[in-house]
């Protein structure tokens, strides 16, 4: 049974395929649903090609759900939080970290 996760982006076009670092929320039903982790993962727009992966649902900054989910294979749980200052843009920090 595949697990389901969710991530947020500002706009759908911001999400790129391949190896990425991102915050994901675990959608497994129960009292810990929506628990959030910062992970390194392989993500793809074509989940059918990812045999051992899970499902990644994607929402925009207004909470709009992308109709078609992506696939995700978690490679590593990195940390609970991210180095940064209060009110700093989390996406900008992740992008700069990857460069």
């Amino acid at each position, binding site marked *: 049974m595949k697990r389901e996760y969710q991530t947020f982006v500002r706009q759908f076009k911001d999400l790129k395929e391949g190896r990425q670092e991102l915050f994901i929320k675990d959608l497994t039903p129960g009292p810990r649903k*929506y*628990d959030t982790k910062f992970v390194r993962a392989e993500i793809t727009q074509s989940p059918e090609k990812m045999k051992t992966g899970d499902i990644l649902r994607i929402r925009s900054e*207004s909470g709009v759900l992308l109709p078609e989910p992506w696939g995700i294979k978690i490679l590593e749980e990195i940390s609970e939080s991210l180095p940064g200052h*209060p*009110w700093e843009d989390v996406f900008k920090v992740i992008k700069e970290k990857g460069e």
Partner: protein
Amino acid sequence: MPFQDHRDFIETLKKTGDVVKVTKEVDWDLEAGAVSRRIYEMGGPSIWFKKVKDYPQGYTLYNGSLGTWRRVAISLGLHPETPVRQIYRTYEERLEKPIDPIILEKKKAPCKENILLGNEVDLYRFPAPMIHEGDGGRYIGTWDLVVTKDPDTGWTNWGMYRFMIHNKRWLAGWPQPTSQLAHQMKKYYLPRNQPMPVALVIGTDPIAHMVATAPFRLEEDEAKFAGALRKEPIELVKCETSDLLVPAHSEIVIEGEIPTDQIVPDGPFGEYPGYRSGTMAQGVGFRVKAITFRNSPILTMIALGVPIDDSSIAASLTAGVAMKRGLKHRGIPVLDVYVPPEGVTHLIYVSVEKGGAQVAKEVLEYFTARRVMVSKVIVLDEDVDVFDNGQVLHAFATKCHPGRGILVEHYEGRANSLTPCYSPKERTRLKGASVAFDATWPPEWPPEIVPIKAAFKTIYTKEVQEKVIQNWESYGFK
């Protein structure tokens, strides 16, 4: 006698018919939020969800503490049918006499009945609701009270800021970057690279929550004003992991710190202007160090959104009176200020003794001088009752000159990024604009040319009015 806690308040609401107890099991994941939202839109009562899915008996959710003017009146000890104007007056008068809080011993504080420290901390022990479909997470802090302190002067700030569960020991939140919490963080903690102690209080005396929404000036302690409104001191108790003081009768207190070097993503969230408008991932992290709570804790919430709800009602009162104080302080001849809840603090009505373009300009300058939460102000003459939307709309439609009666002020770095009409770029740069609609007669017009309002009280002589009133029943009217 003022309410000591939320439980007293709910008991009174039971007697007045302003709360419904839901005993059917309700899912914390969207169902409680959807029920609560629907009730707001029907103008209904507050709701106490007694059985929440996935959680033991006794862990309950309560929505809508001050979601109607009736409940605001009750919270102040007034008759439920007290008119809004009178509620404003009472609030304004009571604020004149601040009362210092009392500090309780820990053993006497109900919020210390249960204490979780260090590794025992688990935010998932509480039925935090997923309020709207598509929100960024479970917002445990909506109808809350967030306590922070200026380490040099001791000034303690209370604010109402959103906080969601990130994981079992982290919260993510979004106090606006122009908020008083942000002021304290940027002035004291960030330059010293010291984490800021913080306490998130859930479910306390309803007046304390109301006061947390009030825009008091910097250095003003909200606890004294809570005492003023209650006409009795509020009882506080010291936190377990910091020297912050929190209301002793609170249901749940989450203690921790906002680090200066770590962040977690907050949002998005359906906010008080009535939209989920993209403010996300630019907030603060909250590392939880302790949770204290009462037996059978009641988690208070607001299914925020399209008005009218607790936020738009409480802010109407607290912001309206604060604005009146501020305008008077600047020497503007203000008579009344009303913040219609439907305008979600974006639209303000101000009546003045004597109007004109200069006064309208001064009013606009007041609203745009520092952080700007207001985008539209209607300035009105003294004959308009600002508490009557119909009168305001009539004056705006007829007296505001479409060319010279509209004043606009643009600014950057201090706008309200929750204003839905701002573009993502404007929100990021806190760039915005505010407008004053001058719906007053130009003071330079000679009195004999000023149009006469064709109303019973203004277009007939006293004699004719008295005659008509005296003969009213004889015309066949009751």
